[in-house]
């Protein structure tokens, strides 16, 4: 299972601290999803060796107009393993689900963003994962939390119906906000998810990273065409 984190300077803890905490808590990897205007400076190999946890380089593109978002997706697609789009407005939600180059639409229900059957169908078609953001359930209170839980439920019902791809994250911005997978599963169960659903959503980050690394690797030429081993002439 993987957790997708905002590291310093986007959050308050460095990638290394978040990775160490996540490793202690039983995660197999972290995805660094700093916003595109607050990139972190870190050495994934070194952190991987030191704490024995996979570190996936990613980005969450934050902008409000489609044109610059489209440019950013093109730029980051070649350098980052996971490209997410900061959702939460109807324009950006729509943009993200229609772009096959985007891996994840982050927190589509945040702010005044909304999701409907049209967007979810587009997400299925383009393989864009919709994110279930548990941070509101963990860290908000009162009426705002009620609204967040309502929106999670709405998203879950549509995603279930269309069998859309999804990811789950608690979006920690410091090592204090990281919660262990068992805790997240217990919370999910309280707010109407099943344990398997949460586990699957956390694991999906890892599968996504593996797939994209394979596509980026040199042996991959295009879908269905790969450089294999060939017979040596004797």
């Amino acid at each position, binding site marked *: 299972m993987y957790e997708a984190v905002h590291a*310093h300077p986007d959050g*308050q*803890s*460095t990638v*290394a*601290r*978040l990775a*160490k*905490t996540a490793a202690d*808590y039983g995660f197999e990897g972290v995805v660094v999803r700093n916003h595109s205007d607050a990139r972190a400076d870190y*050495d994934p190999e*070194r*952190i991987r060796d*030191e704490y024995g946890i996979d570190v996936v380089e990613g980005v969450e593109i934050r902008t409000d107009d489609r044109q610059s978002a489209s440019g950013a997706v093109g730029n980051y697609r070649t350098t980052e393993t996971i490209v997410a789009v900061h959702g939460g407005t109807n324009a950006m939600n729509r943009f993200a689900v229609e772009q096959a180059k985007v891996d994840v639409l982050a927190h589509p229900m945040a702010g005044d963003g909304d999701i409907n059957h049209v967007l979810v169908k587009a997400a299925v078609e383009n393989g864009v994962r919709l994110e279930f953001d548990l941070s509101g*359930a*963990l*860290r908000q*209170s009162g009426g705002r*939390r009620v609204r967040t839980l309502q929106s999670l439920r709405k998203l879950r019902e549509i995603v279930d119906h269309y069998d859309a791809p999804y990811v789950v994250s608690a979006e920690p911005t*410091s*090592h*204090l*906000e*990281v*919660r*262990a997978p*068992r*805790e*997240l599963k*217990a*919370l999910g*169960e*309280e707010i109407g998810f099943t344990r398997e659903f949460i586990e699957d959503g956390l694991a999906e980050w890892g599968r996504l990273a593996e797939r994209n690394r394979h596509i980026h690797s040199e042996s991959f030429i295009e879908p269905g065409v790969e450089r294999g081993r060939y017979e040596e002439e004797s």
Partner: protein
Amino acid sequence: MKHLPKHLRPRWRYLAIELETWPDERIGRRSFQRELWYAGQNLLGDPGSADADLTVMRFWFADGRGEAIVRVRRGETEPARAALACLDEIDGAPVGVRVRGISGTIRAAEENYLRRRGQDSEERNVVFGNEERVAVLRDRVGDVRLDEAFAGATDLDYDLA
């Protein structure tokens, strides 16, 4: 009142909890208990939190790290875990919470899961992000004091000045 015969007494489970916050924050037992009950009530509702119990039985806190033992009715440990995960601030201090393990007795929970480590933290000058800062170091991690807040870091992120 005469106490209950053994087969009628509730069966308890004891959750061994680890707490963490920034170095200059303090967390008291009373405020931890209060926030825990609030978290339980907000997530599980009155009936759910009555079932879970969530009484703090033991509590230690020093230097930004703490440990606690929380009592939960047997069979309610998962809702209790969910309520604990929703603790995010105690008296304005952001807290990290983790369940280290669950036991049937307080003593077993303490012995198996809590270390009551001697918290030997030290303040040192470090170079973090090309600037000299003061950091509170312990156990190969450090919290670096920035202008307004702390940054959580590890030995990989700074050099000792």
